[in-house]
């Protein structure tokens, strides 16, 4: 090879061929990356497992809570007593988002009320903390959990967020949002369909 630099004239045709080859090849490479990126998405099987589930809530005694599985997540159904409903009212000024105005986990319109439910007696929420996805503990009665103090509600074991009995997060806690209310509807007085609602 010669080390002398004799600038050869640029062959326009070859240069054009080179550029167009690179562009086409590059586009092909990007297109070939798509299936790899898409393969990370939930599979059809995972999506099918996210179908609505029917929950029999007839056997839940007042004051008790039962957990159902929907999309692999725990969904709580809490049968609230009148005293429990009363305790929610007392929390109004100490919860971060009393009227569920925030939109990160939009609350369905039928649950955009003080008790965050269709029927005040039954609270239906996804039992996953809006902070980093742990499942809170509870419900705790007044004075039975130091993190809640005199309030009734739920406590997240991971980072100490606390929620009232409507799933509303207390102020100045790591969790930014109230517990999510899943889409749901009453099929009968004792059966709830979780994951599907009557579109208003």
């Amino acid at each position: 090879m010669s080390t002398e630099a004799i600038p050869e004239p640029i062959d326009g045709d070859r240069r054009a061929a080179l550029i167009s080859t690179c562009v086409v090849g590059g586009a092909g490479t990007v297109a070939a990356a798509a299936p790899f990126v898409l393969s990370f998405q939930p599979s059809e099987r995972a999506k099918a497992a996210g179908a609505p589930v029917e929950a029999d809530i007839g056997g839940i005694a007042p004051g008790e809570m039962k957990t159902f599985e929907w999309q692999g997540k725990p969904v709580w159904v809490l049968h609230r007593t009148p005293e429990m409903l009363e305790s929610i009212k007392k929390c109004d000024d100490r919860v971060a988002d009393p009227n569920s105005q925030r939109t990160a986990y939009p609350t369905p319109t039928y649950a955009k009320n003080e008790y965050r439910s269709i029927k005040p007696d039954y609270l239906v929420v996804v039992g996953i903390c809006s902070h980093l996805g742990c499942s809170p503990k509870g419900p705790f009665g007044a004075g039975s959990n130091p993190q809640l103090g005199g309030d009734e509600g739920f406590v997240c074991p991971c980072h100490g967020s606390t929620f009232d009995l409507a799933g509303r997060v207390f102020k100045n806690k790591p969790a930014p949002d109230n517990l999510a209310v899943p889409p749901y509807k009453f099929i009968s007085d004792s059966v709830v369909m979780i994951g599907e609602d009557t579109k208003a």
Partner: protein
Amino acid sequence: MGLHKSEYKGLLGWIDARMPTLMSEYKKHMSEYYAPKNFNFWYYFGGFALVVLVIQIVTGIFLVMHYKPDARFAFESVEYIMRDVPGGWFIRYMHSTGASFFFIVVYMHMFRGLLYGSYRKPRELVWIFGCLIFLCLMGEAFFGYLLPWGQMSYWGAQVIVNLFGAIPLIGPDLAIWIRGDYVVSDATLNRFFSFHVIAIPLVLLGLVVAHILALHDVGSNNPDGVEIKDKLDPRTGRPLDGIPFHPYYTVHDVFGLALFLLAFFAIMFLAPELGGYFLEWNNFIPADPLTTPPHIAPVWYFTPYYSILRATTEDFMWVLAAGVAAYAILLFLALRRPAAKYATLIVALVVVALMIGGPLKLDPKFWGVVLMGLSVVIFFTLPWIDQAPVKSMRYRPAWHLGLLIAFVLVFFILGFLGTQQPTPFYTYIAQACTLLYFSFFFLMPWWSRAGGFKPVPDRVRFAAH
């Protein structure tokens, strides 16, 4: 024809004539790599890290022969390895102990860098490759921790993947994309397995090679922070204070390695769980997607950063915003170029505005994730924020060492708090430590220049023993 004229005889000569690279690389990196003769205790840890890497790879290969990356069988297959596979418990405990030791060794190795200014010019790239290795190691540890499919595996992964959910707009979808499902599930386990056994190790090995090559190009630093290449033997052209890595440091490191392995196997045989720090109790319970264990915490090596995440509360955001504003004013006064001055001011204004207003207003989740990320990547900046006129702590004011020790203490306190349940009192301490942690780095351009520095000798100080 075409054969290289070899100085070696026999088989080695035959190979050398055909592949001279072998011996020239051996010389470059071993027998003719001149390392400073004054290495001390702290210089053991790079070699240890390499040994632990080998331990992890070898034990990992054998674990994969028995482990099943399937949500139905994963937990059971780990118990099967522990109970039924001959020698399985040995291999698995070696791998789990190795994971914690990897971090111990790497933290010591990094501390050495801070102590003697090993990241300073011309070793910035060595340090950057090292930081990238550290990031890979964190990823490797995180992905690997899901594989036993215990309660802590499951909920730890759930929490960390949800960190990505804090990113505005794309967050929730990104979290689903990472998990491959709406919650951590079989799909997540499978892909984490793939990352843990092939993707990250490949990158890690490449980075380790780059780290060592970059080091051997510039040469090792030493406890005096003196460049040994500045004083060459006029006859041989070799550094006067350098000794060949092989045999001097290979023998030296084998001695240290013997002590290291003594400690390693003592823990592995006598206390492989190390009181719940190396293997957490909750991970002996199979993963249950419907119940979070009452107390969840990451493994010890992640707890300092995790504490910073937890320390970020809504109230604390005001303190942080004030801190950013104060720092911007400090930078504004310190910077000379008007463009840099005003750019700093504008960036700070935007950051403060985002912190206290707009859609991310006082959002402790988002800003906690930002702070946690920052607490790790800030190590990358050390070569530039350390402005001391000398490299080694030996010739810096005594209080510089005091600050470094204080920083290590803060790191330990954060680490301890990260293993504990959050209480208001602990949160205050974690917040104070978070401020101290970041002050150490952010104020380094100023404090590292302050005080009286001692003269650095021409040659390394070394007394033969």
